């Protein structure tokens, strides 16, 4: 059991290091265990954006925290994807440049697993395979309508 845990941890941290380099275009991401005794150890996350000196995740900005969390999720799914993934407006804090980096990762995850994502951001909508519109034409009652991407931009 512990051997499997350690193998998984090593695989996830390798993917995390690579994914942080990709989304932050540099910098360093690191996962480490808080205790030599594997059965008791917790998991710490460190991210150092490019050009910056410190790696404390509490000093990161709103958008940087979103990118760090998405990089961790991507690393987990590289090792073992869940049968489906549900994301509700996870791109809210991202500027346009980071939204595009996010959608690159999203498209890759979409090849391994089914993704259901809610967004108001047109850049993210462009990455979708299928779009579903929800309306409340009758006030208070939700309905699903077919939507084409062209009608949204």
């Amino acid at each position, binding site marked *: 059991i512990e051997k499997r845990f350690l193998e998984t941890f090593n695989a996830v941290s390798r993917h995390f290091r690579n994914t942080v380099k990709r989304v932050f275009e540099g910098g360093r991401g690191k996962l480490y265990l808080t205790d030599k005794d594997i059965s008791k150890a917790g*998991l710490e996350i460190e991210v150092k954006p490019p050009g910056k000196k410190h790696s404390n995740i509490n000093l990161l900005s709103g958008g940087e925290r979103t990118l760090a969390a998405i990089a961790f999720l991507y690393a987990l799914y590289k090792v073992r994807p869940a*049968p489906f993934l549900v994301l*509700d407006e996870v791109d809210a804090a991202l500027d346009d440049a980071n939204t595009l980096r996010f959608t690159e990762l999203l498209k890759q995850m979409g090849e391994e697993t089914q993704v259901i994502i809610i967004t108001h951001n047109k850049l993210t909508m462009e990455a979708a395979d*299928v779009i579903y519109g929800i309306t*409340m034409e009758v006030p208070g009652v939700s309905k699903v309508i077919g939507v084409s991407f062209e009608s949204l931009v």
Partner: protein
Amino acid sequence: MIRKLKLKGFKSFADETEISFSEGINCIVGPNGCGKSNIVDALKWVVGTTSAKGMRADTIKDVIFKGSEGRRAARSAEVSLLIEGQELFSAKSSLTEVKRRINSKGESEFFINGRKVRLKEIQELFTNLGLGHKDYAFFEQGQIDRVLRLKPTERRALIEEAA
């Protein structure tokens, strides 16, 4: 993978509503307050979430349609999920229907392919599909950085889930 989601009387989905999802990236869009996050709640509810807080509600009965101008409140709510799942330990791909229904007293009933089961069986089914840990597959609105806020021992559980 989810093939189809059906909602009836669940939160703002008063009428029977069906969504057929596809592979890849399924994007849900719409104005503020139209019911997008209610779909996420429906998915969490049918896979076994039992807490009212997890449903963004005060009591678990709040998931039943409360009425609107021109519509009476519903007396029950029902969500069903058609899943095409590769069981973790076998190559067999099967189509399973999971359903949950709640009545006005707040009592829930669960069904797998029409057979009434207990909550425990639902949770076992989803653990076998690789959905044992809620934080592994659901990222709620405003909670994307939740994994950064968890304590180190809580985060460890996500690695265990991947193992």
